[in-house]
């Protein structure tokens, strides 16, 4: 009776795990017959969100932390959240990146939400309206 598909994955925040993130999301989107576009847009947004966890969430910690990825598809609405339990969202003057991650995510999503994870860390929620493609 499931009219909604779900995916839930927890990975360590290592750069080498980003291809695994895409693999999991690709599999989920394929199984749900999501076409490309917008599958490629989704993969890019999710990679940027997870790359931010890898680069920023646990900065200064000796070990990588967790990336918790959840995807839910109901009807034509896809919601993906990326959660970390790091030190919380903070601007960084010494960011190794070019500052394109959040703007890229915001421009690919139909809604982007950023809020603290209860306890500690950050949760990013990305919503995509899938306008039935071929």
């Amino acid at each position: 009776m499931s009219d909604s598909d779900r995916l839930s994955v927890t990975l360590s925040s290592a750069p080498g795990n980003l291809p695994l993130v895409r693999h999991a999301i690709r599999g989920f989107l394929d199984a749900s017959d999501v076409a490309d576009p917008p599958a490629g847009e989704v993969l890019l947004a999710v990679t940027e969100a997870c790359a931010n966890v890898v680069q920023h969430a646990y900065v200064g910690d000796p070990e990588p932390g967790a990336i918790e990825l959840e995807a839910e598809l109901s009807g034509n609405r896809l919601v993906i959240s990326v959660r970390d339990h790091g030190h919380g969202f903070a601007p960084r003057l010494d960011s190794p990146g070019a500052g394109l991650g959040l703007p890229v995510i915001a421009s690919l999503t139909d809604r982007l939400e950023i809020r603290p994870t209860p306890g500690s860390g950050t949760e990013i929620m990305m919503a995509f309206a899938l306008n039935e493609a071929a």
Partner: protein
Amino acid sequence: MPTFDRRTVDERATVVVIEGELDIGSADALRSALDAAAAEGTAVVRLEAAGVHFLDSSALGVILAAGQRLAERGSRLELANATPAVRRILEMTLITRTVHVIP
């Protein structure tokens, strides 16, 4: 890990054939490959991107920086055979001003 196969062709272009997915895990390897290609000193550095099925904003930043450095010395960076995944982020960021995208 992506592979970066580099060679110099007659027309004085250094061609870098890239295969794989480019994200923060491969940004350093991409940077080294582009630096090595730029060091050949040719007028053109051409990225053969038909085999790039994913490219994120960090890889874009590396490519943009290489394109700017080449432009400063009068050379140019070309990106050939971009896949839809590559075109998507190029177009979103209008990077086409610095990098010459070849259909």
